[in-house]
């Protein structure tokens, strides 16, 4: 079986969610099929400027074919068009212009897919909202599988995607909430689909003591791992956490790992450590009382799965339906809708080691059953076999 993974960007230095997701799945599926990656020469997701050299290359043992982007994106023009289509009455033509502007426009990539369709058994497209997926799926609908990586983003309601979601042979969703959202938008229940997500790997051993010693942490701490920005639930988390401390006098600290685009409050109990190595990240997670996930928009949240892999409970924002759904299904975390629920849930979690242990163990079991690479590979294989069979 030969599979073509089609994605907007690809490279070892690209850490974007969907791109990394695609790379990991492609590398794991190479055990079962001949895998090729079809992508653009872009590295920057704002402009899609050609960056990587043209032509095939090999990355981690996979053949990667790169195609040039015809025209880089003009962010201001794109912003204006998006503003117009999201807020005003518009035509199908306007939506197609938005898609052109969003890019990455690579006619050579589409031409390659059209010419070489017969050489591949299936094309697995990543990220529904980009040019390559929309036109690529239209080019080879009978061989197309889509991994939508959709969030609750207003563009999902655009008319052009309603039709797109009925075209591929099958969907590989990240979560049940993502599947429900896409089915509600497009009524595509007839299209085959499986909820898979992405696997994670955790180091064989982590040392909480090493982390505590390295960063001078003594008290209990909550940990947040990821980008610190508005969509991720900041500065709301700062506000909730500081109010909680003021009201309860708790000595708990908030430790944050990852990049930031927001100013961090200067408070001795808020420790921003910046971007750390994977070893430090897992050490930090191992030493934390719990992982806090304040994000409003998540299509899966890999860091939540990593916390469960280490048997750590999670406190998540209930306004993100994916996070709340994952906590309910796994019985591995609590969630909050407002400050009063945050205070109560956090207070309970910090006060009860037994609750933390029980939630962490449930999370661990949920991770083992659904998000080890073996489980993910089996889900991909099952949908491919289902298509082969019928």
């Amino acid at each position, binding site marked *: 079986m030969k599979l073509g993974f089609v994605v907007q960007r690809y490279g070892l230095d690209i850490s974007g969610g969907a791109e990394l997701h695609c790379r990991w799945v492609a590398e794991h599926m190479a055990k079962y099929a001949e895998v090729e990656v079809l992508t653009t020469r872009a590295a920057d997701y704002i402009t899609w400027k050609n960056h990587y050299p043209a032509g095939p290359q090999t990355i981690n043992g996979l053949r990667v074919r790169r195609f040039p982007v015809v025209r880089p994106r003009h962010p201001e023009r794109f912003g204006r068009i998006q503003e117009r289509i999201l807020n005003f009455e518009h035509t199908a033509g306007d939506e197609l212009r938005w898609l052109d502007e969003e890019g990455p426009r690579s006619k050579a990539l589409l031409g390659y897919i059209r010419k070489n369709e017969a050489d591949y058994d299936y094309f697995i497209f990543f990220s529904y909202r980009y040019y390559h997926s929309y036109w690529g799926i239209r080019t080879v609908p009978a061989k197309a599988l889509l991994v939508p990586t959709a969030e609750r983003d207003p563009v999902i309601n655009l008319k052009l995607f309603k039709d797109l979601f009925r075209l591929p042979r099958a969907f590989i969703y990240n979560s049940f909430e993502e599947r429900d959202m896409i089915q509600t938008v497009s009524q595509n229940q007839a299209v085959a689909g499986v909820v898979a997500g992405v696997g994670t790997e955790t180091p064989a051993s982590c040392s909480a003591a090493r982390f505590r010693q390295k960063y001078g942490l003594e008290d209990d701490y909550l940990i947040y791992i990821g980008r610190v920005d508005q969509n991720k639930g900041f500065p709301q988390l700062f506000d909730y956490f500081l109010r909680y401390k*003021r*009201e309860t*006098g708790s000595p708990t600290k908030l430790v944050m790992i990852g990049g930031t685009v927001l100013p961090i409050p200067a408070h001795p109990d808020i420790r921003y450590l910046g971007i750390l190595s994977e070893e430090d990240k897992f050490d930090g997670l191992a030493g934390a009382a719990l992982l806090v996930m304040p994000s409003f928009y998540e299509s899966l949240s890999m860091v939540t799965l990593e916390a469960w892999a280490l048997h750590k409970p999670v406190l998540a924002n209930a306004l993100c339906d994916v996070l709340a759904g994952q906590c309910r299904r796994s019985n591995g975390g609590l969630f909050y809708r407002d400050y009063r629920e945050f205070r109560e849930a956090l207070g*309970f979690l910090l*006060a*009860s080691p037994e*609750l933390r242990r*029980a939630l962490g163990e449930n999370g661990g079991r949920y991770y083992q059953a659904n998000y080890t690479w073996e489980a993910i590979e089996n889900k991909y294989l099952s949908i491919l076999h289902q298509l082969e069979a019928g």
Partner: protein
Amino acid sequence: MDNKDTNEIRYSKTYKIDYDHIDVAQIMGQVRDKVAREPVPAPSEAGGPSPEFSPAGLPPPGPLSLKKKVKNKLLKGLAPFFPAMRLISLPLHEELRETNEKLHQAGQRIDELTARLNERDITKEYIKLLHSLCHNLVMELTKLRVEHDTLKSKVSVLEKDFEFLGKREKVLEQRLVR
């Protein structure tokens, strides 16, 4: 017993949980019930009073001291002269009373405003939702209106076609009859 243990006991009394079969939905139900039972804190309480200034920090009432005993005896002895003393200090007393009255009214208004602020926090969220609902409704109505106009014009075109075909049918019938 330290603060951690006290908290643990408090939470274990509040929540009924089977730790061998954790059900997050059920725990969240209990959390929400508990939060709903608690009064909404006034903003002034949000910061919380310092423990040293709280009523719990006051010393317990003990036996009367000598100073208090003398004070009580003096108050009893001077009681018959109080009306005359009030009359002498009336202007000052009146000013104090008015100021007190005004302060009391200001206090009441602050309480009222605090309560309204609390309500506003809740209603603000509803207003945001309503605003977005209104926006979506306007969008949908606009789309419907455009669709309605398009359909109307299509119907009028079809009517004209129908009329034309009717006339043509009559002409053809007449020719056939001849």
